[in-house]
């Protein structure tokens, strides 16, 4: 149980909204939840009809996600999925994919 203080510290950081700083793999882990459809590390299978996200500038992905959330960009499914993530999480995800090749 020697790791308990770490957990307590993480909880404290989470409460202040800066949890990403404490978990270096958070962006990677969150982005992996998108990979089922958008490909491992955002490299979608060519010809699969689903957008690749790897290397897409962060601002562009964030704008798309915001438009899905607001309904400005019509979608069959992404408006429902985007609403499941916090703004901070979407920021991490978009940043992670932007850094992929």
């Amino acid at each position: 149980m020697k790791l308990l203080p770490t957990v307590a510290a993480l909880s404290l950081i989470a409460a202040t909204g800066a949890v990403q700083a404490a978990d270096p793999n958070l962006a990677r882990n969150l982005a992996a939840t998108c990979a089922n459809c958008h490909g491992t590390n955002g490299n979608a299978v060519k010809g699969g009809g689903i957008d690749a996200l790897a290397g897409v500038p962060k601002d562009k992905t964030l704008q798309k996600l915001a438009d899905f959330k607001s309904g400005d960009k019509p979608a069959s499914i992404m408006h429902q999925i985007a609403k499941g993530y916090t703004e901070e999480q979407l920021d991490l995800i978009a940043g992670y994919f932007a850094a992929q090749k």
Partner: protein
Amino acid sequence: MMLMKRRDFLKVGAAAGAMASLYGCAGGGKASGHVVVVGGGYGGATTAKYLRMWSEGGVQVTLIERNPTFISCPISNLVIGGTKTMEDITISYDGLKNKWGVRVIQDDVVAVDAAKRTISLKAGGAMTYDRLVLSPGVDFMWDQIPGLNNPDAQAKILHAWKAGPQTVALRKQLENMKNGGTYAIAIPKAPYRCPPGPYERACLVADYFKKNKPKSKVVILDANEDVMSKKGLFTKAWTDLYKDIVEYRNNSEVKDVDVASNTAILEFDKFKADVLNVIPPHRAGDIAAKSGLKMINNRWVDINWLSMEVNGTPGVHVIGDAIFPAPTMPKSGHMANQHGKLAAAAILNMLSGQEPSPTPVVMNTCYSFVDAKQAIHVASVHQYDAATKVVQPVKGAGGVSVARSELEGKVALGWAKNIWADMLA
């Protein structure tokens, strides 16, 4: 099978590690050890790949799978409907072996000794692990349908609820059925694998009948009170597309079968079909059920949502359909893939002396075809909730299709290509 030859394995690992760095992996790196993954389906294959990728080859991974190739359950209803082939849903494990350096062994695990951290293989011998991931899927509770509790009966009255020979056999039965015959599908009480799957199958068999044997009928014998998934969309498809073909009967639990006459025996009623397709109730796959792991309702494994580690059994993680699900979480291939990533991330933290991430997220997307071209979906996102210690569905997120469409049919096939690559390529 002998204990693993560590030296040989390290050679493969080094090669793949060098390759992995080409794929832009970040993080991890410090974790080391040997992880054994049992079951190469949506959950296990994903775990194996992501452990190798995220550790940049630092963690050795052995995947033990009884079948020579992966065969997908999702899309297999299109094989039953006759518009896809087994080849379309069969994929080699070569990508895991050659690209990611996963040691893939075709065998069955017959015992787990969690105290000694060893597993025993059917072919003989044992293997040690630092962490074990069981992704065994489901096995059937044959005793719930006594007439089916023998191999001959199971070869005649099929489930086709694990893709493989039964998929082919059910297709053959439908092809051999006369025009004017009846196909009945029996659905067990929830929870069961792939909540919308039986209704999708009813649609695709109906689509086949409509085009080829138009006098035939599809009868759905559902043990549940109502359609368990995408209700409005399925019922609309039955009304719009299959008005005189599909008949839905709720509260119709099949308690037994008379194999000779192909008859389903319900509580107060009997139903004779030309092709009888009974999906028996199921539980966690045998190896999980017999390894002394903590079970809920004697059926599903009780896991910790931060790590997928079994409560009370350190070092053993269980993922996929075998677990007791979080609220509203379906037993699906997509979800098993997400469990696999959650487990891989947690295991790499644990193997390098860190706690698992305190904020895991998983999400589900599930497409169902209502005819050969048109599909519908359901989606959900589940975030870890520290108060209940469970991943909880995000309110206001997720949902179902507005209407069936060919566009979603195309996306559904794109989903399959991408998730197969995400787990195996």
